Structures are given as structure tokens and as C-alpha cells.
């Protein structure tokens, strides 16, 4: 039913949103894991400042983040100059630009659960592994990752869901180009602006159900004790 009800353009927006959220989540796990590990383990005086920067998107209006990213990635910005020099071109109003914006914007939703999970593993497990001849990398993959698995699941779910739900940053950096930067949240905005409430309902209802199911899964899982 929904397949007929949604226009091709709306299906493109759904597909684009899922692609953006997937790419963003994968990048965030790759970048966020070492960052969270460092935050969980370091005694450096940079721990506080770095932790605060990672958490900024939690409190900043997306327009602020979007604005600075736009400037940085623009032709006069430091990132823009590098990407142009590399022959990639400018990132604003491209899918890659959206990914960059989403990675920053969803960062705390991935880093914080991972950091908590790493801290919960505890020093003793690492020491025990070392006395059993496991080097640091070995210990990370055979002890830390399995023990922090619930943290990885939470981080992936939150990172994915938060990226699906973003609007402001996308609008600032990506604009509204069908099939390239027009994600579901922007499409809903367009439908409402055009007074196409039926289409808006379908997409908005879909988002509502998706978000509820994700959070339900998250909260029900937390009740399950993986290991004691």
C-alpha cells in the first residue's frame, strides 16, 4: 500500500536517508571506537576538552554546526581548499558533505555509549589478559570488544537513528537536491510547505514508527543481562 502511496521522489528520499545513516554509522564506529577508547583510558589533560567537543552537538542548535561546517567546507574554508586541491571538489551540497556533517552531528551518540562500555570493562580484565600473554591489540579484540558488545550495539543503533532523524545540519550543508541530498526529514518539510499533508503523513508516520521501534528495541534489550 505504502509502495503505491509514496512517489518515486519520496522513495528516493527514503533510500538516500538509509544510505546516509548506514555510511555515517560505519564511519562513526571506525572513528568513534579509538576516540572512545582514548577517552576511557587516558589521564591526559586533554580528556576534558576533547570530551566536551565531542558532546557539543548535544547542546548546539544544528544551524550553528551546519553554519561552521559550511564555511569550513566552502571555497574559502580550510577543508574546502584541501578538497579542491585533492581534486574532490567542494563538499557542500553533495552526499559526501552530508556524511561529514552527520558524522560530526551524531558523534556523541556513538562515542559516549562506547566510552561507557569501555570504562565498564575495567582495568583488571586488561591486566589479566596481559599476564596471559595477550598484547594490547590482541586484548582489545579478544577481551574488550566482546565485553563491550552491548555498548557497540547501543552506539550503532543510536548513531543510525540519530542520523535518520537529523534535519537542520542536512538542510544547511546539503540543501534540498532530489536523490542527492534530499533526505526524509527534508522531504516532509517540503510536503508540509506545499500543503501535501497526505504525503507528509506517510513519511512522518513512518519516521515515528521507525524511531519508536528502535527505542523500544534499545530499552527492552537493556533489561536483558548479557553476562553477570
Amino acid at each position, binding site marked *: 500500500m505504502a509502495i503505491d502511496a509514496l512517489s518515486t521522489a519520496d522513495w528516493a528520499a527514503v533510500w538516500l536517508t538509509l544510505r546516509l545513516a548506514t555510511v555515517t554509522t560505519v564511519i562513526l564506529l571506525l572513528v568513534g571506537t579509538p576516540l572512545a577508547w582514548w577517552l576511557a583510558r587516558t589521564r591526559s589533560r586533554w580528556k576534558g576538552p576533547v570530551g566536551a567537543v565531542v558532546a557539543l552537538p548535544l547542546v548546539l542548535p544544528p544551524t550553528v554546526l551546519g553554519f561552521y561546517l559550511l564555511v569550513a567546507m566552502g571555497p574559502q574554508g580550510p577543508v574546502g581548499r584541501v578538497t579542491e586541491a585533492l581534486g574532490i571538489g567542494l563538499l557542500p551540497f553533495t552526499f559526501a558533505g552530508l556524511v561529514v556533517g552527520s558524522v560530526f552531528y551524531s558523534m556523541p551518540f556513538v562515542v559516549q555509549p562506547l566510552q561507557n562500555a569501555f570504562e565498564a570493562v575495567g582495568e583488571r580484565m586488561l*591486566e589479566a*589478559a*596481559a*599476564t*596471559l600473554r*595477550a*598484547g594490547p591489540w590482541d586484548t582489545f579484540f579478544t*577481551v574488550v570488544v566482546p*565485553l563491550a558488545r552491548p555498548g557497540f550495539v547501543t552506539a550503532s543503533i543510536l548513531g543510525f537513528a540519530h542520523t535518520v532523524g537529523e534535519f537542520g545540519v542536512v538542510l544547511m550543508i546539503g540543501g534540498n537536491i532530489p536523490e542527492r541530498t534530499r533526505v526524509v526529514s527534508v522531504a516532509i518539510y517540503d510536503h508540509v510547505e506545499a500543503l501535501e499533508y497526505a504525503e507528509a503523513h506517510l513519511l512522518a508516520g513512518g519516521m515515528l514508527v521507525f524511531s519508536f521501534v528502535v527505542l523500544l528495541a534499545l530499552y527492552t534489550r537493556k533489561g536483558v543481562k548479557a*553476562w553477570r
Partner: protein
Amino acid sequence: MALSPAAAAARSIAARFRVDWPGFVLDVDLALPGRGVTALFGHSGSGKTTLLRCIAGLQRGEAVHLAFGDEVWEDSARGLFVPTHRRPLGYVFQEASLFPHLTVAQNLAFGQRRVARTERRVSLEAAVELLGIGHLLGRAPATLSGGERQRVAIARALATSPRLLLMDEPLAALDLKRKHEILPYLERLHDELEVPVLYVSHSPDEVARLADHVVLLDQGRAIAEGGLVDTLARLDLPTAFSDEAGVVIEAQVGAHDERYHLTRLDFAGGQVLVARRPEAPGRRLRFRVHARDVSLARSRAADTSITNLLPVTVTALADADTPAHVLVRLDAAGTPLVARITRRSCDQLGVAPGCAMWAQIKTVALLA
């Protein structure tokens, strides 16, 4: 089984550590035997656990030189530090610290898999058998009792074929019943493996039962070091033993007296009778004689209910834990004894170094 003296010397442990933290200093320079069980003994806060962690490489000191036999593990003068996972040691923590995401069998295999095949001298089966955990292999650590967990942790450390076994109060987190469940396994370890063990403890009974060699630590310094029997009998070290002053004697089961239900224990300085033991004649046993259970007489008392009388020579006197008492160090044909008597009796009997006397031993505590 037994190492030649030269081989044992080659495996000895030279440890010089300085750790200087606010409120805590560890400053030791030790040469520990490369065989048998060496107890690092002292009050909490004496630095014994810190010393063990430094030897394992879990903690860094400042002026450090650590060598195991002819291998140097750490030398701050040369900037040399072999990380923990490259040191051929086994470590048993106070809490078992098993990996909760692995079964018992997987925990045991974790360390062993990481040891080169040619270096494996202790098989998984041998470690499992020695600690009696064959029936637990498929279980998750969370389902084990405290005592079972600690046995698995010991087996896990052994399965890496360590050339040095470090144990940090492995019994401290257990109740008395569990302690008695594990002690026999530790004794088997001592008897059946030739791995040198450094054993941290604050319990005189554990030390007396398991150790061959003792290092007494106090406020980050080694205040005494030596063989178990000699060190425990020293009068100048009452602080750590205080109310538990006494000696440990190695004896052999001599004979059983079925009529009176007694067993005779023979040792260098004589013999004592104790309540019937299950061990066969010839078995080695250790027993403790607390100073408070030893009294002195000028002559051999015939009219006493005390069975165990030994001729002794007084070698030294020292203050006891209360002003009313003195500690008297005695020599029973080479075996040291300590008696705790009142200052009044001491004066009345005229106890002085060189006196020949009779020691009356009220009870002995067998450590098995």
C-alpha cells in the same frame, strides 16, 4: 624434579625497585630464590602487592632493575622494559578475574594458545587435573563459587607454563571454608611443579603452611629475609607477628601409638606427640608452635600433664607485645623455639642466655 644448585641459582630473581608516590614509598633490593615458594609477607600497605605488580610489569617504578635468571626484564638505566605480555610469568589476582564472556575451558585456553608450542610444559589436562576442575570446563565463570573461580584462575595461569608464578593473596577474598578447599591444591602445586612462586600474604598461617622463604615487608622496605623457620623465629621482628609469635617446624611422621591414639612427629630438635594423624609414617608435615603455648621449667617436670617436654638452651630474650611478658628464644638441638612467659617468671627462674632449661609445649598447630 629437583634442580641442581647451579640451575636454581641461574633462575634466581634480582629485583631492585623504587616507587615514590605521595604517601607511599617502596624501596627494595632483593635477591629471591629461583625455586620454591617465597612469601612476601607484611601488613596491608606494606608494599607487598605493589612489589608483585612491579615484578609483573603491571606497574612502573623509577629506579628499577629486574632480572629473572640471566634475562633482564626491566632496567631503567638502559630504558629497558619488557611488557607484561612478553614476560613468561603467571599471575593470580586476589579476585579470580576470569573472562566473563568465556567458558571455563576457553578461559584456560586463552593463555595457553598464546604460548609457543615448544614452550608449553604444562598441558591443559595437567592443570585441570592438578586443580581438580575437570567437572567445571563447560561452565560460565558467573555460575562458579568463589573457591572454584580461584582454582580456575590458578589453572589458567599454570596453563601458560609460567617460569615464575606470582600470586597476590589468592585466598584473601575467600571465607575460611573455601580457603581450606584451596590450600591443598596450593600445596600440590608446591610439591609437584618446579615453578618458583612469589606469594603475597598477610596471613602467618598461610605463610607457615606454604612458604619456604620469607620476605618481611614493612612500610615499603624489606626488613627481613630468609628461610621460613629462621625468619619466623627471629625475636627482633615482632611487629608483623605480634600476638602470633611462634615458630614453624618441619617434621616427619615417626610412628602411631594406637593405644593412646597419638602420633609421634620427629624433627631435628626432638619429637612431639600429637593426636593421631591420618598420614603414614615418613610423610613430611609442618607444624606451628605459638610462643604463648610454650612455658619453661628449670628441671624436667615429672608431675605434669604436659606430654611434650624438650631440653633447650636459652639463646636470647626480647620484649613481647605487652610489658608483662617477655619472648625467650630457645634452641632445641638446632631447632629454634620461642616461648612467651611473664616477666615475673623470667626473673624468678633466672632465665638468661646460655641457661639449659626444659620447654613445655602445651599444644602444636599442625599445618595440614
